[in-house]
């Protein structure tokens, strides 16, 4: 992508100017086929088929994401089909996830459905993550 390959994919601390960045909102009837790339926050209430790189990702109840997600904070109340690489993960009770969740800290509400593993990774894994690992079954 456009980002230089030397830059780690995930920040483990919020960017100093991150709070000023406006939030992107993808409404219910919104569908993206492709890559989302941002240093700010994205709220998905519609469909995203493809990869998401962001600082904070919120997937609402009606949201559906299919593809790899690389973020610092992930808060999911909708459906995700794919791998999640997130430093902090919060799953709401309506979350429905198929795939692996690579995380450092996690909060899972009662009722959340996870099909797949939730591997814990140390801090430096996220700090040095430059390329996603191969997706093996």
């Amino acid at each position, binding site marked *: 992508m456009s980002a230089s390959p030397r830059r780690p994919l995930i920040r483990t601390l919020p960017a100093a100017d991150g709070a000023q960045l406006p939030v*992107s909102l993808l409404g*219910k009837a919104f569908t993206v086929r492709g890559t989302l790339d941002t240093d700010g*926050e994205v709220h998905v209430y519609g469909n995203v088929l493809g990869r998401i790189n962001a600082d904070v990702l919120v997937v609402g109840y009606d*949201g559906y994401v299919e593809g790899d997600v690389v973020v610092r904070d992930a808060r999911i109340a909708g459906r995700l089909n794919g791998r999640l690489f997130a430093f902090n993960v919060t799953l709401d009770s309506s979350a429905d996830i198929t795939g692996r969740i690579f995380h450092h800290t996690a909060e899972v509400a009662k009722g959340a459905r996870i099909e797949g593993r939730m591997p814990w990774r140390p801090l430096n894994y996220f700090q040095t993550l430059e390329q996603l690992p191969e997706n093996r079954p």
Partner: protein
Amino acid sequence: MTTMFTRNDKTSDPGAKAPEKTEPPAPVPVETKRLQASAQPMPYTGASQAVMASVISKALKITGQVESTEDIQLDGQIDGDVRGVSIKVGSNAKVKGSVYGETVELAGTIEGKIEAKKVVLTRSAHMSGDVIHQDITIESGAFIDGHCRPEFGKTENKNMPPVHKPVAVAREAAEKSSV
């Protein structure tokens, strides 16, 4: 029940040391604060929200196709086609690809095509490509490099946004079948 309670009391006695052991590790307050902050707009109930427009903020770059059956406010960068109903392209926005919709209001840059019933090019608009319209407004200062043709709706319109099933419906169906 009483046995249960006594047993609990007993086990809790040796466990009294537990709080020392599980003393909170180095706190990560910044992270949790941010998490809570982002939690604010979260619909916990799952109740369908009122129709809301989509906003692509200036920091967001999308590579690929975008489509919506609602309004879109674009301030970021899109490499690919956009299909929507009412599309507003902000002054910092950049689209490399075609934009199809009912109404397109352009204040930013489009490199591609516009195909819409009503097209508004504001004074900061930068349009490189053809405009197919039925009704066009061009403000003084707008840049156009391309043809303007009032042919919208005259030819077969296969590029208009498809009406797709909202996810909520699919989800309800899935929940019903799983119960």
